[in-house]
């Protein structure tokens, strides 16, 4: 089944075309990396999927339903998680925010919501920090909490925007390992600049620069050797991998 299905999607701010006729199918349990230059439309595509921006042309389906209907199945992790660090809020309260606002307004949270939030914290390995103040955590730990928040409402698709932009190298690897783990039962879509890192984990890559080109790299990884302990591709290999046989520009040259 396709988790996200985008057909003939175009989007423009005023007269400037940002996305031109995008077609993209994300299958269930895919690990999709969205790469591309700044201003190429990556974030706009995310906003359209999340329903923050409204589109006029094309369609987006989530689990074979109109995106608005199934929007609660998507968990979102925003790019900058360093905002409001001084805010007096406990980890558990941040995670509880992930619940969709359909409960009647009343002080506090329902028991099952609390249980669900604790479950999400366990999934990301942060259950010890439930009652900690969010500002006392490290960048990597805070990112885990944000992932827990996104997982909170029975999420089937996790969408992350530059999840490691403000984390040190060790933390980055831990976050990606966590995502890999979650990928066994959740579809993952990551927008990222760290191409070399993301490609170790992703099985599909979409390159967006107004237009979209799609690469399935799941069966190509074995052909490349590893450097030292960590699997790591160097840029030439990356380009080869992406360009090998499904890149249109390369074909034209031949």
């Amino acid at each position: 089944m396709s988790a996200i299905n985008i057909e003939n999607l175009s989007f423009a701010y005023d007269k400037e075309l940002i996305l031109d006729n995008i077609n993209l199918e994300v299958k269930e349990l895919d690990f999709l990396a969205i790469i591309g230059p700044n201003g190429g439309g990556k974030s706009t595509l995310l906003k359209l999927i999340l329903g923050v921006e409204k589109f006029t042309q094309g369609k987006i389906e989530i689990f074979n339903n109109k995106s608005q209907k199934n929007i609660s199945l998507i968990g979102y992790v925003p790019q900058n998680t360093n905002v409001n660090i001084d805010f007096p809020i406990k980890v558990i309260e941040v995670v509880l925010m992930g619940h969709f606002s359909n409960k009647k307004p009343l002080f506090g949270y329902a028991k099952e919501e609390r249980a669900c939030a604790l479950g999400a914290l366990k999934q990301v390995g942060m259950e010890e920090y439930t009652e900690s103040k969010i500002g006392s955590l490290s960048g990597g730990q805070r990112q885990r909490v944000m992932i827990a928040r996104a997982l909170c409402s029975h999420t089937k698709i996790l969408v992350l925007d530059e999840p490691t932009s403000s984390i040190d190298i060790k933390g980055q690897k831990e976050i990606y390992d966590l995502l890999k783990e979650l990928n066994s039962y959740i579809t993952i879509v990551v927008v990222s600049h760290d191409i070399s890192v993301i490609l170790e984990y992703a099985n599909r890559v979409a390159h967006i620069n107004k237009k979209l080109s799609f690469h399935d790299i799941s069966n190509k990884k074995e052909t490349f050797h590893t450097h030292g302990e960590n699997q790591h591709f160097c840029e030439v290999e990356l380009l080869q991998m992406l360009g090998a046989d499904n890149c249109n520009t390369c074909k034209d040259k031949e």
Partner: protein
Amino acid sequence: MIEALSFEFVQNALIAGILVSFAAGIIGSLIVVNRMVFLAGGMAHASYGGIGMAVYFGFPIFLGASLFAVLSAIIIAILTMRQRNRMDTFIGLIWAVGMAIGVIFIDLTPGYNVDMMSYLFGSILAVSKENIYFMSVLLTTIIFVMIFWYRDILAVSYDSEYAKLRGVNVKFFYTLILILSALTVVVAIKVVGLILVIAMLTIPVYIAEKLSKSLFGMMLISGLVATLFTLAGLWFSYTYNLSSGASIILLSASGLGIFLLLNNFFKGNRI
């Protein structure tokens, strides 16, 4: 001091002090975490326009100030939703225009208006029964709103973008916070005056922020701390025959200084 408690105006001042302190503690917390301190200052000064008009047309001053403060809150809310990055300019504008309207209307009012100073620097000893009713209704409303919409207000304050994604009506809650802030500013003007109102809304909150892990805790602690400062300030002003508003603010500031020193000493925390 004990015999002073038998005077009705002292009793009123104490009741008003406690009511306003709690309102200021709760709303001050929201103002600080939403980074709206400058905005609160703008509303306080804009409400002077309402005070001036109320004096000129002869309707209740609380009503005039409230109307003006709420009006400026709504204008600011609309402008901010459209153009967030120019917010400080708009606030500065509303700040000055409101003040100017107040000054002009007071000029136009016949007779000598000696009482106007009390709105600039507070007059808690002149609190009337009607003022106290107004304050009680406001505090009850604030508590009611917080109980019913705590999670939404928390979500909007902490991460409004995410709250929007989760289906929270961000614009509604933002405007609600602004309107409650406007009304709280108006009652705080009665206690410490519009020039000093910012200090009352921020000093207890700053202390509470260091002591609490959650927004709820922050509201409760700042309410208690504000009450402590207000009562101590009242006692100080009564004993030494000084202005009550300024006494409350200076005691609060001294309290903050002592707190920060102790905090530094015991925890080694930076300010």
